[in-house]
């Protein structure tokens, strides 16, 4: 047991180290020059000034030197300074990650709950019209591009029915305003993660309900629903744990489109602007944060899996 834990941590550490260096290399591989981006489109600036700016941002040093400086700064938890947002990257990320986690976290929670509940029902009675309808509905959902659904929702609920505001995390910093502002984006992202969970869980319940323990539960006197929720669902939702961890990366990029449509300035738009504007420190910081989040999500999933499924761990 100890050796697998050591091996696993070594594997995670090495991949994380590789990610850190890739985070450094990736932005610099992208075409385009951050200094030119900084100056803006119409302005004429002499080359002297450009060189001065490049020196100021430390981009004139050889790559290796920049890389070492980046690593040293990282060890001091200093993520550097954003070129475009003019403030330390750590602050920018801290402010944005809060809102994005709220928005993505709630959607993932809702999505998982909805997906598991409806998936369990659809798996338990696959022949009924309702579960067939649900299956096709959720397949349709999982195949529509995220921004397509977001725009449709906005068009119908915010524009035609005028039920919800159009943009921003809030108008005034009150709970009511945040809730009404985030209702549509959360429902779109929740439907998305629900559609992925639903499909996986439906298949899983169909297999699990054939198991002998389900029959024995019935022989113990449990009635229909009780068998499903007291016995089958826990077994069937094991793959959901790994799916959520795997999907964590997808949810950040999926949220990007929803953030663009609903004009929420969360992590998605931050990364998109940084890519367009070649804001290296922000890119490095944001990718590091996402890699860390996905890594923690996976470690958490492995741990949670061991807690939920005793077969994986030896007797306490």
């Amino acid at each position, binding site marked *: 047991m100890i050796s697998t834990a050591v091996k696993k941590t070594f594997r995670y550490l090495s991949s994380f180290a590789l990610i850190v260096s890739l985070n450094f290399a990736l932005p610099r591989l992208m075409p*385009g020059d951050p200094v*030119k981006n900084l100056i803006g489109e*119409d302005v*004429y600036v002499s080359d002297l*000034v450009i060189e001065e700016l490049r020196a100021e941002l430390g981009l004139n040093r050889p790559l290796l030197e920049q890389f070492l400086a980046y690593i040293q700064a990282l060890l001091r938890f200093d993520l550097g300074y954003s070129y475009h947002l003019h403030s330390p990257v750590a602050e920018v990320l801290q402010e944005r990650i809060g809102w994005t986690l709220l928005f993505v976290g709630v959607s993932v929670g809702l999505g998982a709950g909805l997906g598991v509940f409806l998936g369990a029902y659809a798996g338990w009675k696959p022949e009924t019209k309702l579960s067939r309808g649900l299956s096709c509905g959720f397949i349709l959902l999982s195949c529509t591009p995220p921004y397509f659904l977001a725009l449709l929702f906005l068009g119908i609920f915010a524009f035609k029915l005028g039920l919800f505001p159009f943009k921003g995390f809030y108008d*005034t910093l009150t709970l009511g305003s945040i809730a009404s502002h985030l209702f549509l984006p959360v429902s779109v992202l929740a439907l998305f993660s629900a559609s992925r969970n639903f499909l996986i869980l439906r298949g899983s319940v169909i297999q699990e309900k054939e198991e002998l323990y389900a029959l024995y539960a019935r022989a113990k006197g449990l009635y229909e629903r009780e068998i499903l929720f007291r016995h089958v669902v826990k077994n069937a939702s094991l793959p959901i744990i790994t799916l959520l961890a795997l999907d964590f990366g997808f949810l950040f990029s999926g949220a990007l489109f929803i953030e663009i449509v609903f*004009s929420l*300035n969360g992590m998605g738009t931050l990364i998109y602007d940084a890519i367009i504007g070649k804001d290296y420190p922000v890119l490095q910081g944001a990718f590091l944060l996402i890699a860390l989040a996905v890594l923690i999500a996976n470690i958490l999933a492995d741990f949670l899996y061991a807690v939920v499924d005793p077969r994986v761990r030896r007797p306490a």
Partner: protein
Amino acid sequence: MQHNLKKVLIGILILLILNASLGAGAPSSSGAEAKAGIGNETPKVQGPEFQSKGEISEGILAYMQAVYLGAALRPPDEATLSKAASAYLLQLEKTKGSVLKIATPNTVKSASLFGDYSLGIFAHLSNPPLMKMDANGKLVGQLVDCYEVSENNTRWTFYLKDELYWSDGKKVSPKDAEFTIRYYGKKTPSARWINDTLKSSSFSEAENSVTFKFNKPYTRINLEFATYNLLPAHIWEKIEEPQKYIHEGSYVGCGPYFLKRIELKAGKLVFERNPYWRGPMPAFECVEIHFYSNLDVATLALENGEVDTYYKYASSYPYPNIEQLKKTEKFDFLEKTNVGLIFLGFNLKKAPLSDRAFREALSYALNYEELVALETLGYGEVANRGFVPPSMEYYKETEKLKYNPAKARELMKKAGYEDRNENGILENKEGDDLRLTLLVRQDSARTAELLSEYLEEIGLEIEVKNVDQDTWFTLKDDYKYDLTVTRSTPWGMLMHASWGSGYFDSRRSGKGVLHTLEDPAFLQLCDELLATTDSAELEKSAHALQAYYAENLPAIPLYWNRVVTPFNRDFEGWAADPLYGIYNLETFVEVRKK
């Protein structure tokens, strides 16, 4: 209602006394003017129900001087004064809490006045630049009454307007103007030229003027000073690193409104009426700029009335969405010919585009009417060979571009480009097929489709290369293309020697700039334009430049489009200028609900 009125009355009296004390404290200038005005007739207390605070306070001032200081003045009778004061108070009361909302896709990304490009533009309302461009493209003073240029364009003197007050009550002094220009010069990379070329600067409180002495002649200073926001010296002196100064709270401004709050999370800027603004009183207490990162969402917000109008820097309201707005019958449209335009740029450093005859023949291959119809849905017109649109100063009428594929083929043949091996593609003089790369960015993908269709019709093989923004800049700078579709912004057209010369002059570099023209005749024309500020000479050189374009076709303007700005019908008083569209002081002071 009664209770509010009483409270406001007391408030206004205190303000006036404060003003009066300030006014008295100020040196003779305002006093003299007041004396001259009062002597013979009652102060100007008439006109529309809006009294500008300036007139009222002068009236009361004169009354106080007559009653308490025994000045030999005929005090204005109480009736007109009290009517004016109560009208003013009623007006204040009525517009309490009224908000003008503007939707814009130019999102502000960080609360740094110096760092964020869009915030710099929107801050014009609270910290207006010294100069501005009027409706027909002429540079006039905004916070400045007039300006003088002397010693062959090295000494510029600007005379500030008198009744300008910062929103914290202090009077605007020429010291602020001098500080602002020097501050920009030192702190922002794009204004570094000021730092290098400014020899000396001085200001005089007496004439309320500021003078700048440069070490070499500059003719475009009036244009440059239309972009630097006037900053209060007593606040910004303390800020060492403006680029890194993040501040979401209120900024002190001297415009009709001051920037109260920047709320990035709610996606809006909030401006509030400047209590010390002495000009005509704006009709709205607040102006809110709402950012929408998606164009369609912004148009939806406009349609169902969440916002009153739409503004995007240097471009029009999306043409396909206009028809939808018209259906709601709630909107009027302000149309002005755009100073910027979409044009087909040529790589003049590489055959066959370096050959003038080839470019001439090519100009006949493009179906301009269809381009206007499809790209601007009718909100545009076929351009002239002179490239410069009529909305620019000293516009010269030149020959219209014509679509005639037969003539295009004929001219190609005459220029020596024929299809000798009958494979449907013309060959160049050395005999190999003409394969041209058309480099385009994502937003002009459709235009590229149309252009390649037209050019293939006359026998040229076009390979369209769709690239993202940065790849376009790098490939353009390395001249790795034959044709490219790109756009010019109003500010870009005015750059360098103006009339679009900034885009072609090979001595310049920059993101949007093609720098393809090395022809000495063109360079000489540019230098002439840069050397003079005299309007007659400017006109002559401008016309020569436009004739040069018509003659040599360094680039073909695809169409001249019109900047369309929709606004809610129950508003009136919008004013637009070519540089910043409706986002200018005149609009915010004049605009009212019907």
